[in-house]
């Protein structure tokens, strides 16, 4: 494995070096001392593995189509922005707009994710988009979602028992304007937390093969034991139709 000492290296130089090494045929790179450098792995293709030590900067893996990026640390805003394929696996937490408009590939976050995660998410048949969050997410999760799957597990968050209490794993305006794909969140979710035009149903990983498979992949990618979730209740959100705002300006009805 080739090591790149990235401490204090400006992002342009760092990304040029990563490209150069990958073009030269390196299959595994370790980027050490990363702190805030942007666009790591952006626009890259291929089957190489990038390992990052530190806090990855904004737009990690943006427009990426291939690669496995493993981050031993946190990632800032916009990880996986418009990515088409490959994997981003994060040991820590992720910032706002994680998985923004992603259309394929996988993002696994062990910790929390920020606001507006997975908005405008889409999916391709050959590489379904999936975003699994081990912790919790902020408001507007899956807003305008058009395809793919989002799963929120809440690994260390106890859930409330009362029926109308807020589900702490997601914020408000959940799935607003959603018109494709599916969102799974552990526990029940009161209606006021959800944006509307969305169908809400209960399921468990044991009963839902898709959910079970994604949790298993998440657990493998991060080397975690998620077997305790198999019988837990999850809320599954799917769109009522593919044009949620078709009648927004139609006052004739």
């Amino acid at each position, binding site marked *: 494995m080739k090591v790149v000492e990235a401490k204090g290296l400006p992002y342009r130089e760092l990304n040029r070096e990563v490209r150069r090494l990958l073009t030269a045929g390196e299959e595994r790179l370790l980027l050490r001392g990363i702190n*805030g450098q942007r666009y790591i792995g952006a626009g890259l293709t291929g089957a190489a593995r990038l390992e990052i030590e530190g*806090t990855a*900067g904004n737009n990690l893996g943006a427009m990426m189509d291939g690669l496995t990026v493993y981050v031993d640390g946190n990632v800032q805003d916009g990880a996986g922005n418009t990515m088409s394929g490959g994997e981003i696996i994060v040991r820590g937490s992720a910032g*706002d707009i994680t998985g923004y408009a992603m259309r394929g590939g996988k993002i696994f976050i062990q910790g929390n994710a920020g606001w507006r995660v997975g908005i405008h998410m889409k999916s391709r048949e050959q590489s379904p988009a999936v975003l699994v969050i081990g912790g919790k997410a*902020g408001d507007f999760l899956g807003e305008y979602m058009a395809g793919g799957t989002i799963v929120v597990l809440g690994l260390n968050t106890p859930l409330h028992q009362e029926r109308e209490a807020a589900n702490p794993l997601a*914020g408000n305006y959940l799935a607003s304007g959603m018109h494709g794909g599916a969102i799974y969140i552990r526990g029940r979710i009161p209606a006021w937390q959800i944006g509307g035009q969305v169908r809400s149903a209960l399921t468990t990983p044991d009963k839902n093969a898709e959910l079970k498979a994604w949790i298993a992949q998440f657990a493998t990618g991060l080397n975690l034991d998620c077997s305790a979730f198999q019988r837990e209740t999850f809320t599954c959100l799917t769109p009522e139709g593919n044009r949620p705002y078709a009648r927004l300006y139609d006052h004739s009805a």
Partner: protein
Amino acid sequence: MSERKEDYHQSYEGKIRIPSGCAVAGLINKAGKRVNGRTIGEMMAVMHERSNGLGAGYAAYGIYPEYGKAYAFHLILTDDQTRGEVERILVRNFKIIEQQEIPVRRTGRYKKAPLLWRYFCEPLRPDRESAIEDLLLTTTMRINRMAPRASVMSCGQNLGVFKGVGYPEEIAEFYRIDQYLGYSWLGHGRFPTNTPGWWGGAHPFSLGETAVVHNGELSSYGTNKSVLENFGYELSLRTDTEVMAYAIHYLRRQNLSWPLVAKVLAPPHWAELERMAGPERELVAALRRIYGGLMMNGPFSIIVAFHGGLMALNDRLKLRSLVAGASGADLYLASEEAAIRQVCPRVEEVWSLPAGEALICRAEEESACHVA
């Protein structure tokens, strides 16, 4: 002098295009220990890409203990003649104890920088201490009326703002902020979107004991401005953030606590209000009725400094990033986590601020921070 004037009136708007968004940073030592300005400078440098060289600045609290209770007026001036005019305004209500050019490095692009001057003043009528905030306000407004020829960077006790056109690293170097020790600091790197990048338009914006740095834009500027104009505030600095600084100043003069100031600037949505318990709902609804015109609409993350504390706040939809980090007595705030890790690699806890919920940090020994 004519060269300086030329640079002064130059608007860099539209001449430089770099994709980015403002950077904010703040730090405070809760035990009141004073830290070198180098630290905030390093935090800003890591976020270099967020600025485009059209504005940067710093606010430092606790830097002038030797001047006791004197008010430190930091000014941006075109020339010595303007300084004379400003001085005539100052002496109406203040006795000037000491004055000097703010020490700067006039090299490179700063050969033509404006005249930067500071006055340490005491009120002529010290017996009327309660009126001092009004005095600072009217004096600042009178001077700012001369903008862009003259503008006040800050006018508080034991604090100072250093700002101008440039990248945060350049402004730190220009003002030699590593020569100052403060228990609390703010930093800003600007990416002007709707308003010109000029010296007086750089952040922080400060009035009295508060200073604010802001990332975002305030689409409610017009409404907020018309409300504040009723109370003697004049908006002369051609940047939206000015309205935020004055709104905070006004609300504090109304004796609102910091948590309530935050609730006015970023009030909960009506739907949230309906879910609140009775007394809390009453309070928030009352604030909205009374101070609705000071609600800040649009994306923002701000860090506000005051004597003995910091407040950080996101807009209620969280359209800008703001991260906090804590380590022992030190609290750090920044647009990006990397800025915190740069100066505190072993930071104990890092978290992202939720929408519309203020983080208020007070020094444990406020007396250590406050002017004795």
